[in-house]
């Protein structure tokens, strides 16, 4: 008998169908990966098991855990089970912990609430579990508060809370999505180790095929509330049948076709650039300490080239982006476009600014919701002083070049999907026919299938308009797919630089090696 058996689970929230006939099982000591894009219903499946569905949810079917149907269980029975029999880890470590309680108290609470020991025993157990998840006593006393820990450390605390009573089943819903690659690899390793040590079942929910590829014993692919394919993890990609699974696999490792024509002449030159920030004073009269976000960075991008800039959060890549865009002045060094400085005499050089544009990460936060698309896309015309008389034609042409229709300019931004919005962001970047486009995590928030389409579009545009890209991302697979050359940045410095293929094949710097090893990778499958 399986530890957990989900049988024909269907779910509707306020009458709207969310899940249909979902069935799969989790055995003891088994890792089951549930993979799907947004809206596939994977998280709702997990919440059904926990009995933590939102108000108005109606579930049918069976969720059998150790022989008991949880959908029929009372709230009191479920409370006794949660935390003791089934533990759960969520996506957002930054907000998953109570900010006003110590980590010790929060881990010990799992023990206390289930009456598994006295206060002192619970605290001792909390200490033990925190040690187990890699938070040793000397650096992480029980009296620490969540805000004193990093994202990865907080996720370890959440895991400690979930496994404190050695549950038979652990559910992890996108446990690493909000984390950096190297941290992600550590957390995944930790989960794997805990499964092996405790023999518990692990239900690992993710949107990223790479995360589960070399880890899951069993794969469950979900789409629009249904399970489209299931199978053993080993060799899954060689056997996959369903077109959606194949499409997902293809999109995850998609490499757009590019025929770059790189000229020798550099377009962007960054020379010895440094940028400091003042830190908050530690004492009232202490001298203000400074933090060097970017430290003596130099590189260039040649015309027509696509350059990747890779680094984890806090490495200084955002600061560098703002400096190149002329939003913040640097303290040392200079940034030149076409031989012209971005800043001349503390003032932004408008002629230079017209030559570059940017596409940001968040397809939802990138647009003023009260403006029509026409006005949004036309905003960069401000750099010319006034909108040209034929501005509407040019907006229409820009929209068409990114695969939308000219008539879309009369709509508001909320009428578009995430992928379409990112196309509009690209249209806005194209409107002045710039030479350099900075793509700041431009595809990071998109589902893989949409991401593949946008990458194709970018490759196509660079060819048509002779664009040069600076591609900034934490996602190695994307950088690998679309760049000619790559820079690896860490703690404000460029630690490695070279042609993309070479760097990925033979990384020189230790940090680059760690990054590449940590990045989840899909197995090579012969084309079918």
């Amino acid at each position, binding site marked *: 008998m399986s530890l957990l058996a989900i049988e024909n689970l269907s779910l509707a929230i306020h009458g709207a169908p969310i899940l249909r006939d979902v069935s799969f099982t989790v055995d003891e000591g088994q890792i089951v990966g549930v993979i799907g894009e947004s809206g596939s219903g994977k998280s709702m499946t997990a919440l059904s098991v926990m009995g933590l569905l939102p108000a108005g949810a109606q579930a049918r079917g069976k969720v059998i855990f150790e022989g008991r149907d949880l959908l029929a269980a009372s709230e009191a029975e479920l409370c006794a089970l949660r935390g003791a029999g089934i533990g759960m880890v969520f996506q957002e470590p930054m907000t998953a912990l109570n900010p006003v309680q110590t980590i010790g108290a929060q881990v010990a609470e799992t023990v206390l609430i289930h009456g598994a020991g006295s206060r002192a025993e619970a605290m001792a157990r909390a200490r033990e579990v925190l040690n187990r998840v890699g938070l040793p006593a000397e650096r992480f006393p029980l009296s620490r508060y969540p805000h004193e820990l990093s994202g990865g450390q907080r996720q370890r605390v959440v895991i400690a809370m979930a496994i404190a009573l050695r549950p038979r089943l652990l559910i992890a819903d996108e446990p690493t999505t909000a984390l950096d690659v190297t941290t992600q690899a550590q957390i995944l390793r930790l989960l794997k180790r805990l499964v092996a040590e405790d023999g518990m079942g692990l239900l690992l929910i993710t949107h990223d095929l790479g995360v589960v590829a070399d880890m899951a014993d069993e794969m469950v692919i979900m789409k629009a509330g249904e399970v489209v394919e299931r199978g053993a993890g080993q060799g899954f990609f060689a056997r996959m049948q369903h077109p959606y699974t194949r499409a997902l696999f293809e999109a995850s490792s998609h490499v757009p076709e590019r025929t770059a024509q790189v000229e020798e002449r550099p377009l962007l030159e960054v020379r010895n650039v440094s940028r400091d920030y003042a830190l908050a004073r530690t004492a009232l009269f202490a001298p203000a300490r400074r933090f060097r976000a970017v430290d003596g960075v130099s590189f260039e991008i040649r015309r027509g080239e696509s350059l990747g800039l890779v680094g984890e959060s806090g490495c200084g890549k955002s600061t560098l982006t703002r400096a190149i*865009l002329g*939003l913040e002045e640097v303290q040392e060094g200079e940034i030149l476009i076409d031989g012209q400085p971005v800043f001349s005499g503390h003032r*932004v050089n*408008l002629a230079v*600014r017209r030559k570059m*544009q*940017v596409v*940001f*990460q*968040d397809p939802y*936060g*990138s*647009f*003023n*919701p*009260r403006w029509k698309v026409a006005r949004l896309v036309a*905003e*960069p*015309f*401000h*750099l010319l002083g006034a909108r040209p008389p034929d501005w509407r034609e040019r907006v229409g042409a820009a929209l068409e070049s990114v695969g939308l229709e000219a008539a879309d300019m009369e709509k508001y931004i*909320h009428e578009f999907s995430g992928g379409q919005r990112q196309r509009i*962001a690209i249209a*806005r970047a194209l409107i002045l026919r710039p030479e350099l486009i900075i793509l700041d995590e431009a595809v990071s928030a998109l589902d893989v299938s949409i991401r593949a389409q946008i990458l194709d579009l970018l490759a196509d545009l660079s060819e048509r308009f002779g664009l040069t890209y600076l591609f900034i991302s934490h996602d190695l697979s994307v950088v690998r797919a679309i760049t000619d050359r790559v820079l690896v940045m860490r703690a404000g410095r460029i630690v490695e630089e070279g042609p993309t293929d070479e760097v990925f094949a033979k990384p020189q710097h230790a940090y680059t090696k760690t990054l590449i090893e940590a990045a989840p990778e899909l197995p090579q499958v012969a084309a079918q």
Partner: protein
Amino acid sequence: MKGRISRSLWLGAALTLAFVGAALLSFVWTPHDFAAMDIPNKLQPPSAVHWFGTDHFGRDIFSMVMVGARTSIAVALVAVGIGMALGVPLGLAAAARSGGLLDEVIMRANDLVFAFPALLIAILITAVFGASAVNAIIAIGIFNIPVFARLTRGGALSLWKREYILAARVSGKGAARISFEHILPNIANLLIVQGTIQFSLGILAEAGLSYVGLGAQPPTPSWGRMLADAQTLIGLAPHIAIFPGLAIVFTVLGLNLMGDGLRDLLDPRLRRART
């Protein structure tokens, strides 16, 4: 994704319109001359002739309530206007220069005004210049400035972090242009809702000030003064205290319901955050 027009919005708008209508109507018509004394008929209970009865000078209370609505609405409306006209630009400027000296000065000045409840400002002004409706407006208006400055700054600060603001900066737009093109339209809802709330608070404050004699002076009728006059006679003729009081309650209730309803309509995400 806009909310529905809720019942509370209908009810609130209806009450508000009724009182604004009564105030406007009072310029051309009242059942009786609101200032006409009729001592023989003083303290009459409500009747077909005097719908709300008469006061201690025999004046028609219904007519006085109608004319009193003028004072209340005018004082509260102008005070909200002062608060918005000064508070919103200050808040926008503080947010645009967040963390800078200007921000610090504006916010400290705000804290300082918060240390003076409207009544204390009114007391200070009255102690020096004497009581009048204009001084009541100034007192309530000054108190409204930091309310709007804070609200604007808070709303603007969260918007300044959005990527569309970065995109506008990349397009070469300065802080002032961004504040008016991008920030202001996106916090307008917030300001409208707070405006109705401050409007209702202003009506309550005006009533309190004129009740203690710091607001509109006789012969200008005002709801607060009517209640002050009624106080010693309340045992003899309760109706002279009840009707002006109900006028205040229904006006304030109407504005609050309208504020809640507008918030639901304009910003469904805020629906639950109503207080």
